[in-house]
């Protein structure tokens, strides 16, 4: 899984049936040690309804299709967890 921040959202009212009702967010990778944005942005399916500014973990490739109740969802990047805090090498958790 990868660590990222939700930095934006999209509007799409014409989707494949299996994506109906799912949010598409814009996420940017974050270096989990430094906490800095890396500039690598992508779109991600959001089954959790995460709000902008939250830190998340996301799945890619085949695992991303399992993040949904439906068994067949064509998603190659899905947000699967909201990260509340991280503790790297004994520093204070963020």
């Amino acid at each position, binding site marked *: 899984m990868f660590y990222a921040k939700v*930095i*934006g*959202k*999209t*509007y*799409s*009212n*014409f*989707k*494949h049936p*299996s*994506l109906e009702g799912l949010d*598409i967010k*814009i996420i940017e990778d974050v270096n989990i040690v430094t906490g800095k944005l890396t500039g690598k*942005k*992508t*779109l*991600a*399916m959001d089954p959790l309804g995460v709000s*902008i500014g939250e830190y998340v973990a996301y799945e890619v*490739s*085949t695992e*991303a*299709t399992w993040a949904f109740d439906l068994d*067949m*969802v*064509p*998603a*190659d*990047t899905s947000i699967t967890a909201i990260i509340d805090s991280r503790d790297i090498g004994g520093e204070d958790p963020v």
Partner: protein
Amino acid sequence: MMLGRVIGNVVSVIKDENYKGLKLLVVQELDMEGSFKDKFVISADLIGVGIHEVVMVANGTPARATQETKNIGLDSIIVAKIEKLIFEGREVDLQ
């Protein structure tokens, strides 16, 4: 998920049996500012999009996670049309 713009299509008579009836479009990747990146992909169009439209593409094995493509050997499908991109409080112009 890849953001892209449909820039064309391909026609093929001799192809994998399972590709019969599939519309194959050429999609060029866009970055989140809406400008072209140097990456092109041939994607199967499952939802009926037009040329120049901004779309979202699923690549890799997830492209087979739909009823229509589960038995077809392909790794890129168009799954949504993207009307608006909003980040850093502003709307990215996709026209």
